[in-house]
């Protein structure tokens, strides 16, 4: 009976306009409650910035989206699939439609930049010529073509992050997950990384979930757009037709305490949020 109800519920889900749906998701590690019944949706083409202090469960959300960990309760739908009911082998297939940029890049340190970026394509047994072409395209997107034969240990933190982005976007995923992409970087490099994320958002219209504790990254994404003519970001101010499809979500002690636009975030009366954004 439950299964029939679940299937009916799945059929009613709007997976055309929503790429990720969290429904009352809860997770605890022994006595530590990480997520306490959170619900949210990521629309197609939307970039959602997940904010919160360290330990508020931000990175856990990304791991849940990929099915790397399973929730204790609740449902998670990714591209129309209830991943809480999928086996690891089924998840491997679904994950090929997602891309993730890890906090510390998580590049394979015994492989070159070329091999790292090409990893997924090699696994799919694509022809070598096509792999080479797509690797160069992805590296050119993040302006890292010169480092193609280098090993991750030879790259700076910002360069590793850019290679991580290239590895994530090479298969043109439907959803991109960024785990603190600017964490530990200097302000100039952080801006470069945000510019790349913006470029991906505005050029490919990919849905994205971006976890960060840096408020300025979120506001930069919400307040700017990528101009392909000048190849740089421009402020949205005074351009009413320009919708950057960027929203914010704030977590506190495993609960969602805000989910809305940048403007709504600026106007919210909650003292915790006011203190957080001040």
């Amino acid at each position: 009976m439950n299964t029939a109800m679940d299937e009916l519920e799945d059929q009613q889900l709007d997976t055309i306009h929503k790429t990720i749906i969290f429904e009352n998701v809860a997770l605890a590690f022994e006595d530590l409650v990480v997520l306490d019944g959170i619900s949210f949706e990521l629309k197609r083409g939307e970039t959602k910035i997940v904010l919160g202090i360290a330990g508020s469960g931000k990175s856990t959300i990304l791991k849940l989206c990929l099915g790397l960990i399973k929730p204790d309760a609740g449902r998670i739908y990714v591209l129309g699939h209830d991943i809480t009911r999928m086996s690891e082998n089924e998840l491997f297939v679904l994950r090929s439609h997602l891309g993730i940029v890890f906090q510390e890049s998580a590049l394979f340190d015994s492989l070159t930049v070329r091999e790292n970026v090409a990893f997924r394509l090699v696994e799919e047994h694509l022809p070598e010529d096509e792999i080479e072409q797509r690797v160069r395209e992805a590296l050119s997107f993040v302006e890292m073509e010169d480092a193609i034969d280098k090993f991750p240990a030879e790259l700076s933190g910002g360069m590793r992050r850019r290679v991580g982005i290239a590895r994530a976007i090479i298969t043109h995923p439907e959803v991109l997950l960024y785990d603190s992409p600017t964490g530990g970087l200097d302000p100039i490099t952080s801006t470069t990384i945000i510019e790349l994320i913006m470029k991906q958002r505005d050029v490919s219209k990919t849905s994205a979930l971006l976890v960060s504790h840096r408020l300025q990254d979120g506001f930069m994404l919400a307040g700017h757009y990528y101009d392909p003519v000048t190849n740089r970001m421009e402020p949205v101010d005074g351009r009413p037709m320009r919708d950057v499809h960027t929203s914010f979500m704030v977590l506190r002690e495993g609960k969602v305490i805000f989910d809305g636009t940048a403007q709504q975030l600026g106007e919210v009366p909650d003292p915790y949020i006011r203190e957080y954004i001040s």
Partner: protein
Amino acid sequence: MELTSPADFAKRSVLAVQEYTLLSVQAVTNIFRRPRYVADFLQQADLIGVGSLPIVAMAGGFTGLVIALNYSPTLERFGSLTLTGQLVSLSMVRELGPVITSLMMAGRNATGMASELGSMRVTEQIDAMRALGTDPTKKLMTPRVVATVFMLFFLTIISDLVGLIGGWLYSFAVLRLDTYQYWNSAYQTLTYNDVITGLIKPVFFGFIIATVGCYYGMTTTGGTQGVGRSTTQAMVTSSVLILAVDAVLAQLLLILR
């Protein structure tokens, strides 16, 4: 340091055995599922097999030499010095060849696997692999397990042979034994059961070395300190398991004789 209650310790131990068993079963069943990582297997076979050849040959050679050196006075006392070849041959082929080779491999490869996979684990590379849609047990563990079992089998044969050469060197140079007599005695004494016993053991030992090394690597937590801990545990556990399984196999194979 926090004290662990006996109940917690027991629970953790049972959980570890369960995880190890599941991971080992998965590594074996992966052999029959696509994709198969042939290039990774060949790379591991080269690293594990060819890379271990010098230390395995040296260990085997010195072991054979030491057997001849230690037991020749006793054999001489009974006027049976001509049996040196027989003694070296039986000791090496049935017991010391497989065990010494496996212990050397555990020191070199179980630790290597635990530290390599452990470093990948703590730097999120294993998670990245899963996130990229690749099964780490298939890509990382199965090629290592198959390569270790496969290569240890042949390394043991090489070790046995070099051990016999070591024993002959001592017999010829120090004991002044006849070369033909040594090799004839060494060859004639071996039965099928001795050879099969000596070749079955490395299959089990290879499986233990690779699965224990990979298990500790894949379950590493606690940063670089955790990697060091996993490496030590992999060495200790695989060595103890090799000796324990050797005792069980020796008894079983004697019964089946």
